[in-house]
């Protein structure tokens, strides 16, 4: 008798699971139905899975199922368990046991892959992320991301309502590019409301020299050889190992009724975002046109995106047809703010490759990379409307972006 698993229409070796429940099918070849139990091989160690018979059910850590005879599938849902993300690839093992005898009938290694707090990463996770970044820079593609964000795309992404969705897509693009070679890597976030003693160190994001801000790295840290746009090394005057930058508090940020507005500085872009950049005192990250040259940019922005995601979870702001979720629903046809690119039905540059005014006159990169080789759907699409990145967990649309933050569960 053989048992086969299918997760989100995928069968293979690599399973990267987030918090959004994924539809699964279990099949077996014998001529009699089989009563089985699904569970984690090792409890409370490594990544952990939870199970549901229906998507709306309460998640359980063990699920009894009956697999019909002769290859007729039984359906269920799996997801990562809240706060039990993996620390390494395939450290999560789904087992199917015989319900009566407990005998193991089937095993499949997986990874509960979510974006984690940079300060909590293990040595292994840190190393994988740094290697992925370095390799990506070595390939020459990192500079393309700098160009997209800076010279050409600055106006597409900043001082406007689309600031948060544009950057969400930008982060996802980079993350998916890194995952092509390092599928177990996710972008970590720098929680700038808490000291981060394990982030601003020589073995991770660097420790500034007190006199001139030159970042010190350990020999084994590939960032020691960081070079972008002909500039070698990195500079930041301030470190936040023992303190935090002075900016809008977590409660104040989450209390904003409109995170998106830049007008009157009531949105998130000016504070905490701008202030977090400026708080480093010196170096590329403090200048809008050079900021992504320093990889701390991605950790900072990942936290800005996470704060938006926390706000979404707090007030259930996922319905893309509601102006409480995002203020400009529909198509952008205006020439004064909000502009084209600020509306939920607008496609976003550079992924749309649009070079007609008011878009930048150059094409950069290509569409949004599509996840391949593991169970994930094609969402957002290669060319996508902004609304495709708003409900990132697919709560209303049932079309998740296949990324999660470790502290924001699927509701």
């Amino acid at each position, binding site marked *: 008798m053989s048992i086969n698993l299918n997760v989100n229409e995928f069968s293979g070796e690599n399973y990267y699971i987030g918090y959004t429940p994924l539809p699964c099918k279990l099949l077996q070849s014998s001529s009699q139905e089989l009563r089985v139990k699904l569970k984690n091989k090792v409890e409370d160690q490594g990544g952990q899975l939870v199970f549901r018979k229906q998507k709306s059910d309460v998640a359980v850590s063990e699920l009894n199922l009956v697999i019909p005879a002769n290859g007729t599938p039984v359906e269920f849902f799996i997801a990562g368990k809240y706060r039990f993300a993996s620390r390494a690839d395939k450290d999560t093992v789904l087992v199917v046991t015989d319900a009566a005898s407990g005998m193991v009938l089937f095993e499949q290694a997986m990874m509960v892959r979510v974006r984690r707090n940079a300060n909590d990463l293990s040595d292994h996770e840190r190393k994988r992320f740094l290697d992925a970044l370095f390799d990506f820079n070595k390939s020459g593609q990192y500079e393309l991301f700098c160009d997209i964000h800076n010279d050409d795309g600055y106006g597409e992404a900043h001082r406007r309502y689309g600031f948060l969705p544009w950057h969400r897509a930008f982060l996802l693009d980079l993350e998916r590019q890194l995952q092509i070679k390092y599928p177990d890597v996710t972008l970590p976030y720098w929680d700038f409301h808490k000291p981060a003693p394990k982030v601003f160190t020589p073995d991770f994001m660097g420790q500034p020299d007190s*006199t001139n801000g030159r970042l010190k790295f350990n020999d084994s840290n590939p960032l020691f050889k960081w070079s972008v746009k002909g500039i070698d090394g990195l500079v930041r005057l301030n470190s936040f190992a023992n303190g935090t930058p002075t900016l809008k508090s977590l409660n104040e940020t989450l209390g904003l009724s409109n995170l998106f507005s830049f007008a009157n500085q009531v949105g998130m872009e000016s504070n905490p975002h701008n202030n977090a950049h400026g708080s480093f005192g010196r170096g590329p990250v403090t200048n809008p046109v050079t900021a992504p040259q320093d990889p701390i940019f991605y950790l900072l922005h990942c936290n800005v995106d996470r704060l938006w995601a926390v706000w979404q979870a707090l007030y259930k702001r996922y319905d893309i047809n509601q102006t409480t979720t995002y203020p400009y629903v529909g198509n952008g046809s205006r020439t004064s703010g909000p502009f084209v690119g600020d509306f939920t039905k607008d496609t976003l540059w550079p992924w749309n490759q649009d070079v007609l005014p008011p878009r930048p006159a150059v094409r950069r990169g290509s569409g949004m990379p599509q996840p391949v080789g593991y169970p994930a759907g094609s969402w957002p699409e290669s060319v996508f409307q902004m609304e495709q990145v708003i409900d990132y967990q697919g709560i209303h649309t049932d079309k998740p972006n296949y990324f999660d933050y470790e502290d924001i569960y699927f509701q």
Partner: protein
Amino acid sequence: MDEFMNSLEQLRLEVEQNKESNVKARRVLLDGDPSTNVNDYIQKLSYVSNVDETLIYALKGIVENIELPSDTRISALEKLIDCIAENEDLLNWLFSIISATQETDELREFGLELLQRISFGSSALQSQRPAYTAVLKQLVTDKNLSLAGSALTTLATNKDPEAQSILIDGIRNPGRSLVPVSRAIQLLGTDVKGGHKAVIEEALQSALGTTEPVNSDFRFNLKNAMPPKENNKVIIEALYALAADNDHSGLIAGIAADKALTRDVRTNAINLIKAPAELAGLAKQIIDDPEEDTQIQLSCMNALLHNSDAPFLYEDVDLNRTVQRIAAKSVLFRNASEKYFQQQNLSLDSDMEMGV
């Protein structure tokens, strides 16, 4: 799931409490009750939006009140940061505070720090750029040397030619430099098209304590020229500044190889070598040298592992042999060597059998 819902509920409660606390603080500050501890209420206040004119007026009054303690005035100024970033009148008001020599050093220095923080994305700062530059240039001659150094740094970051001239003067005459020489070199070095190589080479020569002029043709043999430790930062910044120029790769390799220099200087030099031929030559020399500092040998191994032009290195049979030999030195070296061969899709042992 319950745990997550509970954490959301707790967060929701805290957000609401924060809002209430802000409303109360706002009311107290607007009432101007002299019996209250003003600073406590400022701390509880949210950042002020520039539509809240009444509160802006009240906070400006606190900042300008020289009778109040410095920390209270600074707290009030801090709460205005979002308005200052978008409001030209408020920005000019801040300029006047920073420029006022009769004001306290603490308030002026905080004001300048605030400008740095809003420099990312401030529309007011963008439109008031000439006035901002004028304020910074005035501050460069201020008797408060901390303010002068900070202003000079900001100007030089923006490639201001006058500021660059002051930096160059400071490098040549460290006694009157407003910023540490290493920072001056770094600031000049980031202007890759600025044509400052000559002065940086001069600074490097001076820091190395050599009488020979340092330029792209220079090859070091400094075994008897141990530079003072405090010069290390100057040497390192000069190396970063010169590394952008391929002509200096030999010079940087020479510094990396020189045992008279500190480990810090040498590891930075090793990591700045981009040309694979230079790196391969240096790595063979250092790794094969039994008298060499183990840490420096490890630095070379790590530099090999992270070189951008790996295929060039892999073709160097002598280098492969060197990397194989060092594997026997310790577990650390063995791990690094194994990884080097893994990158070539070879294993350390099987490769040996192949006689590479």
